[in-house]
């Protein structure tokens, strides 16, 4: 489809001048269309990505409810900001929230909004595991996976949507938000998930955490996988466990010190009594 479209465009450039009467072309309209297409190709500005992310985050907040406990919020924002500080989008204003949901999952909305469920927090054992999960989600944002998925969906459609987002067209903007919400619920592509596993592990290591945190949390969830129906959603939104463990193991150093920070005391001080919401 894209090749056909590209061929059409290229052929339009080599058509002899007399085959295309420029005087019949509304150049203002054509130039405007070209600008939209270029905007689609080059992606989305941070300000537009943040605006889209706020819409998606407000939708998640309305459907799940956010935990308002200030001590817990402060703590996960400290862990998150320590990671962001070492990331390649450290200037983006990140926000970390907790969803009142029993399922084991975490979400990354565009523009720096990261959410983790109360259910998943109840399954983690230390700060290194929390850092691994948050670093995975941060990596979806640093790699702009939602924006990429929008662009990959359909060249012309995405061109229209991204341009609409930049232009703040309310109707088209709503469709862009719909698309992003569904993408978060159903999961990114396998390739993007495995990339987030690799980059998240590296980011946790760069921040000084024991980089085995994400691997350990994924492995523990896998132990329950066959018998726990609550994991059904997690399984649906992530690649098979062994693929994830293989991807993470590839970036883990061969020899790792046992004294790297795991910080179980700090984690348990805040989340010891976390019971998944029913």
């Amino acid at each position, binding site marked *: 489809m894209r090749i056909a479209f590209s061929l059409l465009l290229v052929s339009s450039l080599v058509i002899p001048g007399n085959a295309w009467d420029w005087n019949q072309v509304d150049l203002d309209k054509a130039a405007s269309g070209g600008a939209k297409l270029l905007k689609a190709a080059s992606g989305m500005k941070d300000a537009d990505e943040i605006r889209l992310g706020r819409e998606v985050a407000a*939708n998640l907040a309305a459907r799940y409810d956010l935990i308002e406990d200030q001590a817990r919020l402060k703590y996960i924002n400290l862990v998150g900001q*320590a990671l962001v*500080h*070492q990331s390649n989008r450290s200037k983006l204003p990140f926000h970390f929230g907790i969803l009142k949901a029993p399922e084991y999952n975490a979400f990354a909305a565009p523009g720096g909004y990261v959410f983790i469920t109360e259910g998943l927090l109840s399954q983690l054992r230390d700060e290194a595991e929390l850092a691994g999960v948050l670093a995975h989600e941060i990596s979806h944002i640093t790699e702009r996976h939602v924006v990429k*998925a929008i662009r990959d969906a359909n060249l012309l459609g995405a061109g229209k949507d991204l341009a609409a987002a930049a232009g703040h067209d309310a109707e088209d903007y709503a469709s862009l938000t719909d698309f992003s919400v569904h993408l978060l619920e159903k999961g990114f592509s396998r390739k993007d998930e495995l990339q987030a596993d690799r980059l998240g592990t590296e980011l946790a290591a760069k921040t000084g955490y024991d980089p085995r945190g994400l691997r350990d949390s994924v492995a523990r969830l896998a132990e329950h996988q066959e018998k726990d129906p609550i994991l059904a959603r997690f399984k649906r939104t992530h690649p098979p466990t062994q693929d994830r463990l293989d991807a993470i193991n590839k970036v883990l150093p061969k020899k790792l010190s046992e004294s790297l920070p795991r910080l179980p005391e700090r984690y348990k001080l805040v989340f010891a009594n976390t019971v998944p919401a029913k």
Partner: protein
Amino acid sequence: MSRTWKRLFLLGALASAAVWGFAREKSTSDEPVPVVGVRGLEKNDEKIDTSERDYAAIDRLGRIEITTTELQRFIKEGGLK
């Protein structure tokens, strides 16, 4: 803008889009379909209401402030970088 400049701009836009189209096709041909008809969608009967919004909750979340001093202390106490 003169018509000549508009013509040059239009040609540039078309050429860029054509090159981008080829590049995208090459880089994504070996990937699973990532979005429309997303994994799991056909197995999931849940209806997601994408129109709901709670902006107030997001505004409250945005008011969680981490100062540079707090962050540096947190990093130092945890033995992080």
